[in-house]
């Protein structure tokens, strides 16, 4: 990995908003450019060489994804538009038919909106009940707290592998084992997990997993839905149309394709898929364990310095991911972000789509810095220096 692999970093920029999206290495950009320049035809359809090439490469990326998350079956990998669509397909395409009024789905207050609203929608439409697993003092999920809220009506536990504000790593494997012993399904929102940790769905044994390509050096508008094959077989498509049907005549004579194509109606995001293949190769060449380790190092390096700034209130002193959420006493988070922007440092201010988290932390908005493997100690030094001068911050925040 070289910083020069990332064209965005050739400008004067410190990018600390990787929880939102990540920068793209040149190999990903080149692949997308190559596709649009030299063989931009549709996958699956057409009996000519270029279409065959696209189809082959498209399906090769599916195999790369399968291998990347260690899925048993190739049919378990469905291309979607992102984690949000994947989670909505899980809720509306599978659980809407499976769950009954009064059944309970367990989430937490620190989930991202995309792992809250699909369940709220099921509560509003079919009468399930969304309940919360209490978090401990450090906003972590413990197995004991999961046990406390499981009832005979609990049917689903839907959790982020890592949350997007606190950055706590959930004991997914242990939760899955407990859940399965009680006939409960586990849905994992992997948007903040898969880009930063080695993912093994066989080992975690989750029933469904959702993640986004753009948070792991891939293109926007593309994500993955993973589901155990026997469960995806039961999933109803949410997109009916071209590409997903085998044949049709009348409503009663309608035949769908096999998995996974049955769930991929419409012309797919071919450029995105091909680019994502290169992103997976790129991440694999570095090694996911190395990425996790380096991000942990960056976090502890930053924390050691940030903890010395007396007027910083850090929300997640304990965390497993490269995420630090904080506020500066008496300065609104957006003003802090605006001040840092003057020095070309990109951070996010706000509730970070985890609007229920305020009930837990007592803090509605915060500044969030989130690292990826291309960030450096020297970038952190620059950030710390700017945050260490409160007077300068007050002057330059407007």
């Amino acid at each position, binding site marked *: 990995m070289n910083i020069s692999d990332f064209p965005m970093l050739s400008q004067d920029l410190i990018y600390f908003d990787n929880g939102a999206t990540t920068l793209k290495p040149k190999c990903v950009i080149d692949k997308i450019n190559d596709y649009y320049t030299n063989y931009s035809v549709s996958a699956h359809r057409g009996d000519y060489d270029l279409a065959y090439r696209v189809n082959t490469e498209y399906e090769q990326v599916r195999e790369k994804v399968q291998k990347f998350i260690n899925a048993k079956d190739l049919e378990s990998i469905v291309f979607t538009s992102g984690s949000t669509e994947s989670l909505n397909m899980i809720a509306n395409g599978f659980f809407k038919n499976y769950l009954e009024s009064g059944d309970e789905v367990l989430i937490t207050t620190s989930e991202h909106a995309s792992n809250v609203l699909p369940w709220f929608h099921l509560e509003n439409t079919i009468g399930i009940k969304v309940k919360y697993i209490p978090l401990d003092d450090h906003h972590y999920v413990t197995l004991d707290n999961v046990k406390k809220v499981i009832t005979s009506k609990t049917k689903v536990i839907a959790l982020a592998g890592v949350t997007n504000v606190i950055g706590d790593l959930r004991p997914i494997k242990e939760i899955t084992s407990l859940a399965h012993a009680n006939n409960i399904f586990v849905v994992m929102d992997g948007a903040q997990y898969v880009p930063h940790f080695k993912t093994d769905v066989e080992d975690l044994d989750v029933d469904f997993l959702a993640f986004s390509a753009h948070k792991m050096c891939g293109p926007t508008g593309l994500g993955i839905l993973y589901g155990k094959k026997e469960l995806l077989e039961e999933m109803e498509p949410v997109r009916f149309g071209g590409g997903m049907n085998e044949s049709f005549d009348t409503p009663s004579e309608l035949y769908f394709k096999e998995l996974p194509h049955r769930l991929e109606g419409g012309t797919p995001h071919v450029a995105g898929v091909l680019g994502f293949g290169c992103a997976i190769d790129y991440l694999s060449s570095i090694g996911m364990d190395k990425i996790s380790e380096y991000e942990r190092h960056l976090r502890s390096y930053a924390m050691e310095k940030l903890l010395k700034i007396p007027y910083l209130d850090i929300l997640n002193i304990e965390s497993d991911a490269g995420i630090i959420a904080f506020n500066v006493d008496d300065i*609104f988070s*957006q*003003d802090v972000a*605006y001040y840092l922007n003057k020095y070309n440092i990109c951070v996010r201010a*706000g509730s970070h789509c985890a*609007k229920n988290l305020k009930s837990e932390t007592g803090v509605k908005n915060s500044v969030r810095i989130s690292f990826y493997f291309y960030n450096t100690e020297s970038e952190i030094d620059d950030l710390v220096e700017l945050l260490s001068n409160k007077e300068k911050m*007050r002057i330059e925040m*407007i």
Partner: protein
Amino acid sequence: MDEEFRREIIMDHYTRPINRKVPDDKDLYLKVNTNNESCIDNLDLYIRFNDGKIVDIYFDGEACAISTSSCSIMIKNLIGKSISEAREYIKNFTNMVDEKDYDESLLNEANAYNNIYKQSNRKHCALLPYVGILKALNEYEKK
């Protein structure tokens, strides 16, 4: 307006905003909420009308320095104005932010935002309270 004076006005209204509280007799006020897409600035405005005039405005909520100060200055400038005078003032402020022709003599301290157009990501902060007050005026006039 020099940079120092501009800063002073904004910081003064940010640190000591006018009427930042929920009014005691809030039932007499029309309440509107105004927030921006990035889901961070979030203000409630309480406006009391009497006979086609704005007689009082309060505000409450969380917002950045620009939104908060802009709201405070807006309140100072609008109390006592008739609906049509208020609309004229709002139009001139919006024009200034959008780099269109405007009458600076109507804006008083709100002229402190006359270069906010240079910071496009902050324009919506300065305009936020105005989005709210327009909502309130439209609602009042519909009644």
